[in-house]
């Protein structure tokens, strides 16, 4: 449905601000009289708080106030949960332990706030930490997931009597029966390691309480401005319209910036009202690693049952999921794992069990991929093991088991993060893989290129995998579209933006409907004063859910344009043309009215209007899908490894994907490439490591390695297929996480293939040169 503007690769409209240093980010905000907050954080992962004495800190010049949990009185309370428990799943058990804003009695992760210092500068605030006497009695740290499940070596929440955060079992078909009929059953233990979102901009929060206006303004790096406003207002006993949340430009989100009810957004508004001073808090990089949520850390016991020809009969997966010290974000991540394990394969019987555990580590909430990479990793590892066992080619076994288009829509029988049964709405999964095989010259690689390289002693291997990406989930988003007296269009929606290019793609949707240039559409995201209904930016839903709401509003405005113009031009609507910012009578371009003029006429200040007519060329639209739209794709990567140093080079990276209708191919490819780079980082460079005491060993970019410009492959080759989603009028599916989901699966397979003579089987998602070396050493000893 490519149009003049919609579907075109137009460059981004927001870049002019970002390129010249004029875009306002949170740390660029200065308010007269502003003071600074710093959080004193626990060095221990698990400890009882015996005493915190900050009297000396108050004497330090420039320190304005210090607070601990006790000082907040009744205002201190846990939560609320940001995502509700999975009660829609029969028999599910969930122990709610929402985040506490600041530790009271007990510390449950290293980096948990103990005290907040307010001072004239951040320097002074942090210097004052030295004046605070903290007496903590260390307790054994709960780190290992399986031990945690056995309530060893301690309880994270004593009152709960267990470290079980949740137990959720789901089944479609009957796995045990399928297993009994199978020729081959393969079981594996599979680990998915922990990674940080590591947006280049850390989190931040600025709050100003205007005592005379009785209004609070908050600037925050949040992915969920409206839920943030609602919880702040409710906690302080204010009306929602007394609190305005503004998201400035945000330097990347990738998940964790969705979190609310943390120390900053709970404590600082309360303090700002007490002190009547604006307060700024900007997280530093170390805090970002320690105390901003992160994700992935699962241990799977998975099993696949097949016929001897490689047809899948069933899959079973029992997995431990680390939720960290609290579970404020419900079960979004492990539920995504459950729904993505069967992926786009025909799996008649599937049993999946989540054992979610509390540990003394930072809380786990979605990071780009959000449980999906884990599910896909497990399934793809099982497929690889099966291919090996049955002596089949990895592409062949996948082609054999991929669902056919005529099997869709398919109800999966598994309830997902949106609490409805998952449905694979549309797609052509085989076509994705076939196109990928063409692009990567699969046959030629296997039959000619690889043997020739191997003959030269080169270790070159390919990984080839498939994936789905459940996107665009509910509940809903909304938007208002208004044509101004200046003839330009303003759009306001409740979601916020972290670099996805919303200002451009939303403008394209509207420009196409209203016959204006994209540059003449001004989009406001994430300012509750402009639009105040919505849920937020997560699960790759911005373009599909907010975009559809915007489309719905634009369609209504379009109808209004024709109705109003028909009255003024005195011809029926069918005889009116719309374009170039004006309306005219068909065939008589001299009889025109500009949209700006029409907007004035649609808002008369005297006279009468017809019943039922609403003023202005303005409309509000909403959209809520019944269930999410599922994108899909396939990835192949070719790597070369130096067997001496284990240095690895990515020779080719090819991804074919289908995210439905494309609004802007330029931006789409950027999203895919960004996801891929995170996937490559997750697979080979990045790993969050907690030691046995629950100490994070990787709390800086020196220890937590992110891919650099020199680490990325020469080119990310992208192939597009389009099967439009039947769920929304534009046919869009999300794409934000596509690149991150399949990459680790492809990576390990490629490494195994490159080092084929060692017959490696790598059961974990994060490698590094030294890891590969260890695997090779082990294999050589065995062999």
């Amino acid at each position: 449905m490519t149009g003049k503007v919609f579907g075109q690769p137009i460059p981004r409209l927001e870049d002019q601000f970002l390129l010249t240093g004029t875009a306002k980010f949170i740390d660029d905000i200065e308010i007269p009289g502003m003071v600074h907050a710093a959080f004193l954080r626990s060095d221990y992962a698990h400890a009882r708080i015996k005493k915190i004495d900050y009297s000396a800190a108050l004497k330090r010049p420039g320190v304005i106030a210090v607070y601990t949990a006790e000082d907040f009185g009744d205002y201190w309370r846990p939560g609320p949960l940001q995502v509700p428990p999975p009660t829609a799943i029969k028999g599910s058990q969930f122990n709610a332990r929402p985040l506490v804003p600041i530790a009271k009695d007990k510390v449950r992760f290293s980096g948990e706030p103990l005290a907040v210092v307010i001072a004239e500068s951040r320097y002074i605030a942090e210097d004052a930490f030295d004046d605070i006497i903290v007496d903590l009695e260390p307790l054994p740290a709960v780190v290992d997931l399986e031990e945690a499940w056995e309530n060893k070596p301690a309880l994270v929440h004593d009152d709960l009597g267990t470290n079980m955060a949740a137990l959720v079992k789901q089944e479609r078909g009957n796995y045990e029966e399928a297993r009994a009929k199978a020729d081959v059953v393969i079981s594996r233990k599979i680990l998915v390691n922990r990674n940080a979102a590591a947006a280049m901009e850390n989190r931040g929060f600025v709050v100003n309480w205007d005592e005379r206006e009785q209004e609070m303004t908050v600037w925050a790096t949040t992915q969920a401005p409206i839920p943030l406003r609602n919880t702040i207002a409710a906690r302080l006993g204010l009306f929602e319209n007394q609190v305005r949340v503004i998201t400035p430009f945000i330097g990347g989100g990738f998940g964790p910036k969705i979190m609310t009810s943390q120390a900053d957004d709970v404590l600082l508004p309360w303090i700002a009202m007490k002190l009547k001073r604006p307060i700024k808090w900007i997280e530093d990089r170390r805090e970002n690693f320690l105390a901003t949520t992160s994700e992935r850390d699962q241990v799977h016991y998975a099993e696949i049952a097949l016929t001897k020809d490689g047809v899948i009969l069933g899959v079973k997966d029992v997995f431990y999921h680390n939720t960290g010290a609290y579970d404020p974000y419900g079960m979004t991540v492990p539920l995504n794992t459950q729904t993505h394990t069967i992926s786009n394969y025909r799996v008649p019987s599937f049993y999946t069990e989540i054992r979610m555990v509390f540990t003394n580590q930072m809380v786990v909430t979605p990071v780009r991929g959000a449980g999906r990479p884990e599910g896909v990793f497990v399934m793809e590892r099982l497929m690889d093991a099966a291919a090996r066992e049955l002596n089949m080619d990895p592409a062949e076994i996948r082609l054999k088991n991929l669902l056919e288009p005529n099997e869709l829509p398919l109800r999966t029988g598994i309830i997902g993060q949106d609490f409805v049964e998952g449905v694979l709405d549309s797609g052509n999964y085989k076509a994705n893989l076939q196109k990928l095989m063409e692009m990567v010259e699969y046959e030629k690689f296997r039959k000619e290129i690889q043997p020739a390289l191997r003959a030269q002693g080169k270790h070159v291997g390919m990984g080839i995998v498939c994936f789905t990406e459940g996107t665009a989930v509910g509940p809903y988003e909304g938007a208002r579209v208004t044509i101004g007296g200046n003839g330009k269009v303003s759009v306001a929606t409740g979601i916020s933006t972290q670099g996805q290019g919303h200002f451009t793609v939303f403008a394209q949707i509207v420009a196409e409907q209203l016959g204006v240039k994209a540059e003449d559409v001004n989009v406001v995201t994430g300012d509750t004063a402009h639009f105040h209904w919505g849920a937020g930016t997560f699960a790759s839903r911005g373009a599909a859910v907010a975009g559809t709401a915007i489309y719905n509003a634009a369609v209504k405005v379009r109808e209004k344009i024709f109705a109003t113009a028909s009255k003024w031009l005195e011809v029926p609507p069918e005889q009116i043309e719309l374009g170039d910012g004006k309306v005219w009578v068909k065939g008589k371009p001299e009889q025109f009215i500009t949209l700006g003029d029409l907007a004035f006429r649609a808002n008369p200040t005297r006279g009468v209007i017809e019943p039922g007519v609403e003023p202005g060329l303005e409309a509000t639209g909403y959209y809520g899908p019944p269930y999410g739209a599922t994108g899909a794709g396939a990835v192949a990567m070719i790597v070369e490894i130096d067997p001496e140093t284990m240095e690895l080079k990515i020779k080719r990276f090819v991804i074919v994907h289908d995210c439905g209708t494309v609004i802007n191919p330029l931006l789409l490819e950027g999203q895919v490439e960004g996801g891929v780079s995170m996937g490559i980082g997750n697979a080979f460079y990045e790993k969050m490591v907690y030691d046995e005491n629950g100490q994070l060993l990787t709390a800086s970019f020196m220890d937590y390695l992110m891919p650099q410009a020199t680490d990325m492959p020469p080119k990310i080759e992208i192939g597009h297929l389009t099967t439009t989603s039947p769920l929304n009028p534009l046919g869009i599916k999300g794409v934000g996480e596509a690149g991150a989901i399949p990459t680790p699966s492809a990576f390990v397979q490629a490494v195994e293939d490159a080092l084929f003579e060692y017959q490696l089987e790598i059961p974990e998602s994060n490698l590094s040169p030294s890891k590969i070396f260890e695997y090779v050493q082990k294999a050589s000893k065995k062999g």
Partner: protein
Amino acid sequence: MSFHRIILTVNGSTEQVDVPGNMTLLQMLREKLALTGTKNGCAAGECGACTVLMNGEPVNSCMVLAAECDGAEIVTVEGLAQDGQLDIVQQTIIDEGGVQCGFCTPGMLISARALLNRNPSPTEAEIREALVGNLCRCTGYARIISAVKAAAEATQ
């Protein structure tokens, strides 16, 4: 705390600033001169978001003390465009789609400008090498690299 009076050129204009001894160049630019285009991603010399030109060389401004900048010539992202005319790398990065959140962009642009100043026709490997100190979490670098290439070609 000792204060130092320094005189330096920033984006072509002469500034006299009194800075405390512990203030970094990054803080001085952002807090004293209100040039907030230069970003702080780590304050530890690890991410490159704070890159500026100091006497023509790219430096992590979070690792330079302001007091060291007496007499120095500094160029920040705000100084790249001249008379409303974007620097060629600014233009090519828009055209190539090399910006997403834009937080790394000011530092990237400065590193790219420094490269093109010393080597007007860099190879792809040289471009990657020049950007190695600038982390970007959003783009996967490909479009930033092609933007630098395009900028070099356009100025040939």
